[in-house]
């Protein structure tokens, strides 16, 4: 089952208990703020069935930040998104790892209702994970050693941050 990875601002917003007023099958508004679109497009990464490329994607994502911090993310079934008719296109990612950039996908032409529908899919079937700062640091270091990321492409002093 191919997966898609979306980095979230706080994965615990998705796992919080639903408010009492929420109707069954609906999704609260707060988590939707994690799905920040640009040009009506949502940026995700393709993750292989065996998740062999997961750590490389996370390292590349973390390496473009200004400091080491936790990464919250959701993994969800790519087939479900395709079945629902979402328009998806492979586009170049913007990370310091060229290979990871090829795994970048855009979910395009998102309307408000499509975004809410996507949030419902994520809430129902998504896997929500957190990578701790120490794990993130190790991922970056490992991928620099493996020459997947050029040290010059890192934010200066990123690995000195706490």
């Amino acid at each position, binding site marked *: 089952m191919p997966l898609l990875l979306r980095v979230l*601002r*706080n*994965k*615990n917003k*998705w*796992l*919080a*208990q639903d408010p009492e007023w929420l109707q069954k099958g609906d999704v609260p508004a707060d988590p939707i703020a994690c799905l920040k679109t640009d040009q009506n497009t949502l940026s995700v990464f393709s993750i292989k069935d065996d998740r062999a490329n997961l750590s490389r994607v996370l390292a590349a994502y*973390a390496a473009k*930040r*200004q*400091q*080491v*911090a*936790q*990464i*919250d993310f959701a993994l969800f079934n790519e087939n479900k998104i395709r079945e629902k008719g979402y328009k998806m296109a492979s586009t170049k990612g913007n990370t310091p790892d060229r290979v990871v950039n090829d795994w970048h996908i855009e979910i395009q032409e998102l309307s408000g209702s499509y975004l809410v529908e996507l949030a419902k899919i994520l809430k129902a079937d998504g896997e*929500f994970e*957190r990578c*701790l*700062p*120490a*794990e993130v640091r190790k991922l970056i270091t490992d991928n620099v050693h493996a020459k997947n990321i050029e040290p010059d492409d890192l934010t200066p*002093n990123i690995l*000195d*941050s*706490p």
Partner: protein
Amino acid sequence: MNRVLFLGRQTAIGSPRGIELSAETWAEPWKTQVRVKRNLNLTDDPRVAQPYIKDDPPSSTKEVKTSDEIDKMVESIFRAAESEEFEDGMVSFFQKSLKWLTICYGSQVLTTIVSIILYGRCSEEVAAQTLKCMGQLNHLPTKDFRFWILVRCLKNEAWVIRDGALIGISYTKDMFFIPYLEQALVDEKHKGLCKDLEKVLSYLKSLR
């Protein structure tokens, strides 16, 4: 017909956006920073300087601010933070200011922070960002006080604040927190936080 005015957030990260502040108030923390940086010959990165900074800031800095003035500076930074958009891994103006003030004025700043967080005088999001800073800061003179704040906030009513405290703790790499996290795990109701508590606990235990 009544109309509602919606004021959207400004989005630039790391830039001053406390429009309710006067230019003078806004500049104050930075003036202080520049002075301290000059005195101690520091780089722009507070982390580089931390091991060399004592709780006692240079006398020139100390004389400049009364406790009321420090309180006002902290409060103004918190007010400005309410309109700041935070992003994990990106350095925010709030974070920078808070770290510098803590380094310069130590427990005086932390006392004000405690009152702001515990009396709910800031949003949960800003409180969580503060707690992440408390954990990131590597400043020995304020260590006990910062750790106390993190432990105290593990029991906060709001899960967003407990989450912030947990992330802050994960930065410290300090086994001091293990018993508190074990207790928090027993009490925690939020299923996402339970998983995170277990993860941080197992990470800290692995450091033994």
